[in-house]
C-alpha cells in the first residue's frame, strides 16, 4: 500500500514555469528543453472481483500486465511505455475491435493541474455517470490539460484460448462477416488475419467455418504512417499496408497527412485547453 505519493508529484509539477512529463519515451517522450517530471510508478492495488486496478501513471504497461496476469486478467492498453503515456496518447493496438478503444479503460484519474493542484476525474466504479466525463477528455490529451498521477483502470479477464489465424482473402469482408465478435481482423490487400478468443471449441469452430489456419501472430505492421479512415473505405486502400478491419486504422508504408479538423472544432479544443491551462505551461507546444 501507499506506493503513490501524489502530493510529492504535485509539488514537483509546481504552479509556475513550463514543465513537461516523460514516461519511458516510447511514444515521443517529453517536450525537449523543458523541465521534466515523471509520474509516480507502481501498482497500488488490484481488485479482481471488481475488475479494477489502481496504479501510478508512471507504471510501465508491461509491469501492470504482468501483475494482472497473476489474477488471470489484463488491461486493454497497447504494450510498451507507461500507463500514463498510453492514456495520454490514447491509441489502441490491433485488438481494438474486440477490446475497445483506450478511452474506455480509464475509470478515475487523479491528475496534477496547471496550478499544481491534485484534481480527481471520474469515479471508482465501472459504471458511473456522476458529472461530466472528464476522463474521456484526458485520454488522448497528451498532457495538455493536466499530468496524470494515479489512475483506476478497468480490467478484463484473460480468455481461455487466444489464437491468431490467417487465410488468403481478396474479399476482406467475407472473412469479417463470418466471425462472431473477433478480437482483431487485419487485411493487407491479399491476406486476412484474425485473432479469436474464447472457449477453445468455439475458437476452432469459428476458424474452420471461415477457412482460417492457425499462425503464430499478426503480420509486421508497416510504420510509415498510422491512418484513420472510414472502415468502409479500406477496400480501396493502395500500396503496402495492414488495415484493421471494422475499425479503420491503417498501418501504411507511406507517410500521410491527417485531414485538418474544422476551425470551429479547433477553436473549441483550444478554448478547453485554455480553461485548463491558461498559461500553456503543461507540455508547452502541444496543440490539442
Amino acid at each position, binding site marked *: 500500500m501507499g506506493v503513490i505519493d501524489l502530493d510529492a508529484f504535485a509539488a514537483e509539477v509546481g504552479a509556475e514555469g513550463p514543465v513537461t512529463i516523460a514516461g519511458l519515451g516510447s511514444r515521443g517522450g517529453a517536450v525537449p528543453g523543458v523541465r521534466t517530471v515523471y509520474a509516480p510508478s507502481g501498482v497500488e492495488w488490484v481488485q479482481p472481483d471488481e475488475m479494477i486496478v489502481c496504479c501510478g501513471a508512471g507504471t510501465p504497461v508491461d509491469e501492470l500486465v504482468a501483475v494482472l496476469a497473476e489474477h488471470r486478467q489484463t488491461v486493454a492498453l497497447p504494450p510498451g511505455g507507461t500507463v500514463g503515456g498510453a492514456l495520454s496518447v490514447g491509441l489502441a493496438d490491433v485488438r481494438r475491435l474486440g477490446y475497445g478503444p483506450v478511452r474506455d479503460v480509464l475509470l478515475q484519474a487523479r491528475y496534477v493541474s496547471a496550478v499544481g493542484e491534485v*484534481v480527481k476525474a471520474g469515479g471508482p*466504479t465501472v459504471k458511473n455517470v456522476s458529472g461530466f466525463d472528464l476522463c474521456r477528455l484526458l485520454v488522448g490529451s497528451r498532457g495538455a490539460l493536466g499530468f496524470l498521477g494515479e489512475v483506476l483502470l478497468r480490467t478484463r479477464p*484473460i480468455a481461455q484460448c487466444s489464437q491468431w489465424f490467417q487465410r488468403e482473402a481478396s474479399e476482406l469482408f467475407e472473412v469479417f462477416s463470418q466471425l462472431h465478435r473477433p478480437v482483431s481482423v487485419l487485411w493487407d490487400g491479399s491476406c486476412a488475419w484474425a485473432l479469436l478468443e474464447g472457449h477453445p471449441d468455439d475458437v476452432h469452430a469459428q476458424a474452420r467455418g471461415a477457412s482460417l489456419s492457425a499462425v503464430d501472430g499478426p503480420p509486421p505492421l508497416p510504420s510509415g504512417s498510422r491512418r484513420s479512415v472510414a472502415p468502409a473505405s479500406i477496400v480501396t486502400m493502395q500500396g503496402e499496408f495492414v488495415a484493421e478491419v471494422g475499425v479503420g486504422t491503417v498501418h501504411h508504408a507511406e507517410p500521410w497527412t491527417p485531414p485538418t479538423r474544422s476551425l470551429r472544432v479547433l477553436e473549441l479544443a483550444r478554448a478547453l485547453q485554455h480553461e485548463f491551462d491558461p498559461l500553456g505551461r503543461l507540455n508547452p507546444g502541444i496543440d490539442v
Partner: protein
Amino acid sequence: MNEGLAADLRSVMSADRVRTNATELGLYRRDASNIEGSAGVVCFPLTTTEVQAAVRTAQRHGVAFVARGAGTGLAGGATPLDHALVIATTKMNRVLSVDAVNRMAWVEPGVLNLDLTRQVSHLGLHFAPDPSSQQSCSIGGNVANNSGGPHCLSDGVTASHVLGLEVVLSDGSVVQFGGEEPEEEGLDLRGAFVGSEGMFGIATKVLVRLTQNAPTVKTMLMDFASVEAGAQTVSAIIAAGMVPAALEMMDQLCVQAVEAYIHAGLPLEAAAVLLVEVAGLAAGVEADAERIVEIGLAHDAGTVRIAKDEAERALLWKGRKTAFGAIARIKPNYYLHDTVVPRRMLPEVLRQVYEIAERHQLLVMNVFHAGDGNLHPLLVFDKREPGVMERVHAAGEEIVRASVAAGGVLSGEHGIGMEKRDFMPMMFAPADLAAQAAMRRGFDPTGLANPYKVLPSAGACGDVQHVPDGAWV
C-alpha cells in the same frame, strides 16, 4: 410564455411547430422525475438547420434552451427552468444510414432506442445500450445521459457505442465530433460530449456502433435465502473470470409484487432472485452457464431455473422488466434511486438501504443491475399522505450518502441533472468541480445550454444555491 421569442421562432420554422399554449407548455415543464420547472416556448425542429436557427434565436433573446428527447429522464435533466425554450427532437426520428458490414449507423437524435434495434435486427445487429425505458427513450437522451441497461455489463454503456456526433453548439455553429474514422486528431470531444446532459450543445446526428446478436443465449434464474448469498454469488462469478451478458437481482418484496402481476412462477419465499444471462458462442455459453450454476449452488442457491426456450426466456425477462408496472399496484407513487457501489459492498449497502427505509417508515424494493453494483432502490409511497415527500427525500439522500461512503458513486445511469446537483460535493472536492465547470465553459461559454444542472455552483452563473422560481424537487 415568451411571445417575442415564439414570433421569431415562427420565422425560422413552420409556425405549427412552435407552441406556446398553456396546456402544451404544461406538458413540457418536467421530465419523468418529479422536478418541475416552466417552459417559455416549445419547438419541434425537423433538421439540423432548424435546431441551429432555434439556438441562435434563443441566444438573441438571451433565453436558455433545453434539448428534450422523450422526457423519460429521471434526474430533471430535461426540466426547463425560468421559462426556457424547449427544443424537442421528437420529429427528428429517422435512421439515416446503416453500414451493416462495419456495423454502424447514422441516426437522428429523436430515434427511439428500441426502434433503432428493431430497424437493424434483420441484419443480425442491435444497439447494445438497453435502458428499461428503451421503448420510449431517445438516442439523443441516451447520449446526453450516457445511459445504461441490463446488458451493459458485458457490452458497456452508451459512451462505448457512440462513434461520432453532429452537434449544434450554443453559439449556433454546427460541428462534428468523432466519426467513421476511428482516431480523430486532438481532444476526444465526442467522448466528452456523451453524458453532458444537454449542457454542451444539442446532438443533431449520432453515429452509433451496432453490435452483433449472440448466436447462443442462456438465461437462468437462481434464488437465495439471503440477499448476501445472492450478492456473493455475483462477486464470485466475476472473480471467476466470467462477464455474463446480464446479472440482475430482485429482492423479495419486488419478486412478490412482480409475481402477483405476471404469474411467471417466481419463488415467493426467496430473499433474493438472480437473473443471469450468458450470451455468445455455443461452447463458451455452455461452459459458463455450468460454472455459474456451480457457483450459485456453492452459495446455497435454492432452485436454479434455466429457460428452456425463447418463450420462457421472455417470461423471465418480463418479470424483470415489468417491475415498475407491478409496483404501481402496491402504492400509486414511486421514487427510483440510482447509485453504484463496489460489488463486494452490495450486501452491506443493501442492509443500510432497508434500515434507512424502515427508519423513514417507507416501503423499499430493490431491482437492480447487480453485476455492475448499480443499485436501484425504489421507494414506494402515496404522495397524498401528509409529510411523506419529506421522508422520501430524506431517505433518498441517506441512500446516496451510504453508497458514496461505501466507495461508490452518485449515479450509474440516470445522471445528475437537478436531482443530484447539490450532492456533487459528496463525491468531488472544489478543485474537481472547478475542472468540470471548466469543461462546461469550454463547450458553452454563454451558459445558456440547459443551465442550473449538474454543477452545484452552476458553473457559469456562480450562484450556489439558486433554485429557480417555480421549481420544486
